């Protein structure tokens, strides 16, 4: 039923909508991340379940309904000098989508940004979830406290499950203070292997580097980020400059607007915005990145997470996995036409015993196979 969107207003209605569904459902948050195999089905929107239900700055916790706009959460946190430390990427520029990213979408896709390299991913900051499984049953797991090992950790399982195990209705997150100062260290002109060495040196130092990215190309740029109090910034900048002396001149940027813009560009992979081609995202062992870059022969590339995250832009329809051969980690086709996403598996195929476990879990959480069926296949 194209065009018709089911929009429950609360968790009870969501439960009824799923229980009463007579066919596949396409789960929608803000609709800004059309990633994975195209799903045919009735659109089920989570946007009606909106609002922050609890925010305790002194306990570093925030609970919100899944359809809450991310911008609303970020504004509430900013008012208390706090933030989501995992720095969720905004996919709109890359994917050419409009709409309002929701916190449920961020969690369902386990969306993390440059700070993931040291602060952890979305899943590491997710304390609890409520969701409706494929039978319509409401399930909660975890809670709103920072340490919780009571029962199985379905919280992690739900993060990055792309709506295939359940429809998230509420999420609970750990939040962190925003350090007063953020600085970017910039080194120009490094070839990829040397850039990787610079990032590795920085991340292996005690100076708490919270971002390490490299944009190759005709004018390559390597970026490092440090955040903290004034003494920390002064001390760490000096030590890092010393440590990285061999890699060339280091320019330090402290203008808050410029630093924010630089890292937003890395986070949202702005170098690929408006440029045609498929976009792949690889999660790899950082030291493998230069070799993979050489094998991929891509039209564009960017490294984040000290080399652990590789972005590649390739001609439409390229089967990158075939080109790379076996490697440790995985490749996700993030941007491609629906036809390409139907032809090439967007998510890395798993080895048989692992695929069997994943499939078994999906079948038990969604016995009728109606929640975003096939999206991760």
């Amino acid at each position: 039923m194209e065009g018709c969107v089911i929009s429950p207003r609360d968790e009870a209605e969501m439960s009824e909508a799923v229980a009463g569904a007579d066919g596949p459902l396409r789960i929608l948050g803000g609709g800004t991340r059309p990633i994975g195999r195209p799903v045919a089905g009735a659109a089920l929107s989570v946007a009606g379940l909106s609002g922050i239900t609890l925010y305790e700055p002194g306990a570093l916790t925030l609970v919100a309904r899944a359809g809450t706009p991310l911008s609303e959460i970020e504004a509430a946190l900013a008012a208390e000098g706090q933030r989501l430390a995992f720095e969720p990427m905004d996919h709109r520029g890359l994917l050419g989508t409009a709409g309002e990213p929701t916190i449920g979408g961020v969690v369902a896709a386990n969306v993390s940004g440059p700070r993931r390299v040291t602060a952890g991913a979305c899943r590491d900051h997710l304390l609890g979830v409520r969701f409706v499984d494929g039978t319509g049953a409401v399930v909660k797991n975890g809670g709103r406290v920072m340490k919780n090992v009571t029962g199985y950790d379905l919280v992690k399982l739900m993060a990055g499950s792309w709506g295939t195990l359940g429809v998230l209705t509420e999420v609970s997150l750990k939040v962190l203070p925003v350090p007063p100062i953020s600085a970017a260290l910039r080194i120009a002109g490094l070839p990829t292997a040397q850039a990787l060495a610079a990032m590795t040196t920085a991340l292996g130092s005690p100076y708490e580097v919270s971002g390490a990215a490299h944009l190759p190309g005709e004018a390559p740029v390597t970026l490092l980020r440090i955040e903290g109090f004034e003494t920390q910034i002064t001390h760490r900048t000096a030590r890092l400059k010393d440590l990285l002396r061999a890699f060339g001149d280091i320019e330090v940027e402290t203008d808050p607007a410029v630093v924010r813009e630089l890292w937003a560009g890395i986070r949202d992979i702005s170098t690929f915005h408006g440029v045609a081609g498929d976009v792949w995202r690889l999660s790899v062992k950082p030291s493998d990145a230069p070799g993979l870059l050489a094998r991929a022969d891509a039209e564009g590339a960017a490294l984040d997470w000290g080399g652990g995250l590789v972005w590649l832009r390739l001609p439409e329809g390229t089967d990158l996995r075939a080109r790379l051969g076996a490697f440790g980690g995985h490749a996700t086709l993030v941007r491609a036409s629906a036809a390409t996403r139907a032809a090439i598996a967007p998510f890395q195929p798993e080895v048989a015993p692992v695929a069997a476990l994943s499939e078994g879990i999906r079948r038990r959480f969604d016995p009728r196979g109606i929640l975003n069926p096939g999206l991760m296949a």
Partner: protein
Amino acid sequence: MDMPIPDAGILSRKAQIVARLLAVLPRDAVIHDAAETRAYECDALTAYKCPPLAAVLPASTAEVAAVLRICHEEGVPVVPRGSGTSLAGGALPTADCVILGVARMAEVLETDYDNRFVRVQSGRTNLSVTGAVEEDGFFYAPDPSSQLACAIAGNVAMNSGGAHCLKYGVTTNNLLGVTLVLMDGTVVELGGAHMDAGGLDLLGVVCGSEGQLGVVTEATLRILPKPEGARPVLIGFSSNEVAGACVSDIIKAGVLPVAIEFMDRPCIRACEAFAHAGYPDCEALLIVEVEGSPAEIDEQLGLITQIARRHDPVEFREAKDAGEAGRIWLGRKSAFGAMGQINDYICLDGTIPVSELPFVLRRIGEMSKDYGLAVANVFHAGDGNMHPLILYDANAGELHKAEALGADILTLCVEVGGCLTGEHGVGIEKRDLMTTQYAPSDLEAQMRVKDVFDPAWLLNPAKLFPLAVTETRRAA
């Protein structure tokens, strides 16, 4: 604490099962003599004991797979065991089970500083992971109190925490991959040296599954560069409420200490008598530790001092050197030993929202009076992970009364928005309380995961879920 009635059929087939295990393992790796299996009759929850049918000590992933394949065919329950330091009874045997101990697998398999990880066999102790990398300036962050003895296998099973989680997270945040052997002997690799999952985050659900989904034989662990330095301050307060408010204000101010530890008066007194750390005699004290270069530490401690002064501390002591830092930590680190010397105790680890600290501490005080059992509190305040120590006399038959008080305290933790266990795990200890935190549909969702990994419910089957809830699955 009830345990399932042992399967008479398995008991009668002991000789055959032992013979099959001996066919795949060296003679000294199969312990089946009744006198020797008693070494495995309990873990650190010593109130409950039961010798297993047999214990095996495989030395490789292949041997673990061979053992599990046999037990799977024979329908024998398997209880995985790391170092046996569980306070929740996670490694408690049943008479018809095989204990699978990973103690003989303790090697470091790979050290990679450039990519900041180590791969170890799961029997390696927590502290010796750091031991393997610290000379090169790195460490493994999760630091449970039992870190000298506890194994990575148990840390992964229980998703262990420690005092420094506020900054560094718990096991699951520092675990990159595992080699997991399923109950039917299938070996799977989850995760690796890369940072996130390509499909469903199975690694995330395996961590903390209390040995019920598979046996972890190898783990890839994230290691971190050691901070330049660390320094604690000790702050004494005239009431628990004020100390609790101070914790909340420190966190709100944007400083993120690496640890905020809390001790109440009963605990302070016991520690002082035991360790003579020179603690002030006050209602509550905090130990707050920050990291960095000397100047960075000065700046952060300056801010913390300002905040603490607003709460009229009765004592404020900043470590001037390593010796003073050591004395500040001395009492805290000997707290459990101090308690053990004067009493039997149950150590709980319910977690609560930090904002509920004053209320919960007051209620625990009232409950303690009602039961006539002393409770001392020492815990990780920054993340709300309580550790009430219920003191009792086992010889006077007070165990059941102490357990009842424990159940009431944990129920209170859940009522204020917290949980039953922050880092120890459920095991058998909190199994029957799971229904206070979770509705039937919540537990059903968790059990479905076990159905997938271990359809016959043979791995550590009598733990984590209330027995009545799992009865049909275990019997099937």
